[in-house]
């Protein structure tokens, strides 16, 4: 029987930090971290000292001062006496508005173009290929300017709607397409349940939520019935009723009326104005990013093995159901992750708004406020914070959605 002796306990010696493979990598990492921290400290200190030497001290008090300028598209109450912070908020909401609208339409364009590009129809698939190649290979700034220029040059000015022999006229007497934007009728409630318009619209939204729940319940009921009896009851009429009845009832009770735009003085007034810059930016971002999304969709669909389609067809599913039930659910796993970065691109590219005079946050906080106050560093830091927060939020939401569609491994 041999005796096992413990290796001699040598204790810890300093040289082991370099020579002993157990510690060596750790040593180097600690050294690297310290050097990095020193560099950051040096640069930060340098920044603060230089700023102080130049007489610039970081201060955000200017945000409370009156801004002194007006903004043409305001989603919240704002005038030139409001603070710079309020101006930044107006810009922020404008950025979010155009990003939200563009994300939706870009997805619609992208999915349609991506699916059609795989069409068996030669003409359709080639047309889509042309769309994708043209739009994603020209910078989005150029698209924004082209669309805006065409709009202002081609559409008539409000002046041309005036007089007995006007050269332009409103469509259906309710839509006016001018080179300053499109005026559409605005719905409002004659005898709303709440005093504020916003609350009334929230009520309508709540009605929709109720309808959605009801429709869901009808589906659940139909599924149970189908499972127990084998016959699925007809639900189309019921679901339609669940959506329409509460909505129509609400509209009747609150007295829905339309306010039509009309020419008054220099411009149209009344109705809702969708400004030219918003349209140009929205449309340009949509078609540009749509072209990228189309490629993602195509890649996603082609990533699903052909055997899946063939197996589904062999089971007797029709082509549309094959797409909806078999191919798309699997394709989404490939489509969603790059789609997230496309949404982030839309949000960030919306900062090109200033090219057409759209008052997004880069134009208000990063443009006029920065210029009038001279607080460049403060404004730019705030802008970075905003875009970072917005992008991370979009990422988070989309990642949650991605988690819900990705392959569930059991």
């Amino acid at each position, binding site marked *: 029987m041999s005796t096992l002796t413990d290796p001699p306990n040598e204790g810890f010696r300093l040289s082991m930090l370099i020579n002993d493979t157990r510690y060596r990598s750790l040593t180097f990492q600690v050294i690297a971290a310290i050097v990095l921290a020193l560099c950051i400290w040096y640069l930060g200190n340098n920044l603060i000292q230089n700023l102080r030497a*130049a007489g610039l001290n970081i201060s955000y008090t200017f945000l409370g001062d009156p801004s002194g300028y*007006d903004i043409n598209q305001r989603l919240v109450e704002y005038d030139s006496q409001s603070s710079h912070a309020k101006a930044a908020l107006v810009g922020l909401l404008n950025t979010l508005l155009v990003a939200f609208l563009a994300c939706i339409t870009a997805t619609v364009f992208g999915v349609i173009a991506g699916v059609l590009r795989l069409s068996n129809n030669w003409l359709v698939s080639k047309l889509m290929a042309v769309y994708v190649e043209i739009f994603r290979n020209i910078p989005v700034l150029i698209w924004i300017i082209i669309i805006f220029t065409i709009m202002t040059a081609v559409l008539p000015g409000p002046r041309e709607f005036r007089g007995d022999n006007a050269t332009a006229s409103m469509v259906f007497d309710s839509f006016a397409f001018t080179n300053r934007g499109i005026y559409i009728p605005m719905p409002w409630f004659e005898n709303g349940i709440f005093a504020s318009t916003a609350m009334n619209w929230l009520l309508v939204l709540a009605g929709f939520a109720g309808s959605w729940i009801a429709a869901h319940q009808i589906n659940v009921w139909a599924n149970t019935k189908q499972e127990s009896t084998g016959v699925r009851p007809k639900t189309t009429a019921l679901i339609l009723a669940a959506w329409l009845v509460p909505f129509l009832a609400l509209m009747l009770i609150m007295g829905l009326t339309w306010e039509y735009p009309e020419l008054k003085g*220099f411009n149209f007034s009344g109705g809702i104005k969708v400004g030219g810059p918003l349209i140009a930016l929205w449309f340009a971002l949509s078609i540009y990013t749509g072209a990228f999304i189309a490629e993602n969709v195509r890649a996603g669909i082609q990533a699903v093995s052909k055997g899946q389609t063939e197996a589904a067809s062999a089971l007797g599913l029709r082509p549309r159901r094959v797409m909806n039930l078999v191919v798309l659910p699997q394709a989404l796993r490939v489509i969603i992750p790059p789609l997230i970065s496309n949404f982030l691109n839309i949000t960030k590219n919306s900062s090109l708004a200033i090219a057409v005079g759209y008052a997004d946050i880069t*134009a208000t906080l990063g443009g006029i406020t920065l*210029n009038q106050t001279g607080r460049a560093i403060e404004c730019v830091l705030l802008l970075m914070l905003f875009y970072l927060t917005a992008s991370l939020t979009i990422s988070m939401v989309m990642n949650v959605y991605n988690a819900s569609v990705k392959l569930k491994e059991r």
Partner: protein
Amino acid sequence: MKKSVILGAMTFAGLAAGAASAGTLDDVKARGKLNCGVTTGLVGFAAPNANGEWEGFDVAVCRAVAAAVLGDSNAVEFVPTTGKTRFTALASGEIDMLARNTTWTFSRDVDLKFEFVGVNYYDGQGFMVPKELGVSSAKELDGATVCIQTGTTTELNLADFFRSNNISYEPVPIETNAEAQQQYLAGACDVYTTDASGLAATRATFDDPAGHVILPEIISKEPLGPLVRHGDHEWGDVVRWSLMALIAAEELGITSANLGEMAAGTENPEINRLLGSEGTLGEMLGLSADWAKNAIASQGNYGEIFAKNIGEDTPVGLARGLNAQWTEGGLLYAPPFR
């Protein structure tokens, strides 16, 4: 992410600090070229001509400074700036001076840390509308869409004017004069507002200048002048006195025609001091004795520059008005050269 913030900010701060400490005059002499910030194009004030050479009223100031410092009025690198980029360009040291019809205001002088060296054009903000609108006063502009260059004092004056008259408007913010012109002509806005001189200059380039009227209201004081960075007083003096030399030359009757004759010596000691045949004014500035002679030789005196670029015989067609010599009822008044 965090690192790049600090690196970026540090670069900015480093540039700002570096620019403030060095002597601009020495830099310009060593470089052999003056970097002068001008507009991106405003006919009469600063715009490239058919040969690609910059010319105009503001350009003349740049050329005069270059001639005074370097003896060569063509030793200028013109840097086009927008209303938004001009101050950053100057603060960062990208340009040595800014001659871009920039309004002298308290906050720009004090808070933004610049030094306005004088006024080369006394202006005020006006409105231009198409004649067919039949508007005769700015107070009739209720509800109008107004094109405006963003990042300028006009933006703030406009808001104040409409608010104090209790009428509404819709602003269309635009980056450059050229874009504003295009938008205005396309009818995307009813009114274009900027300094009255700028309106006249813009109108001069229209196909049909007579179809547009400049409304009588002048809603603000806009003293336009060249500016330099705060803290470099030697350089500030050079730019200030180059401008003053042009103004004094007109007052003293020195023109590009009689400059050679005058420089040889006259009976008027002030002319002699100015042109360097007497005294050491050039030396005090750190320049050669004939600095003012070179400055005047480049484009002529103030009156000649005015007449050639924006005067009544040019398409811009501006009268001297406030910009006449003090002896003729204007505001131009150069301090004595002694």
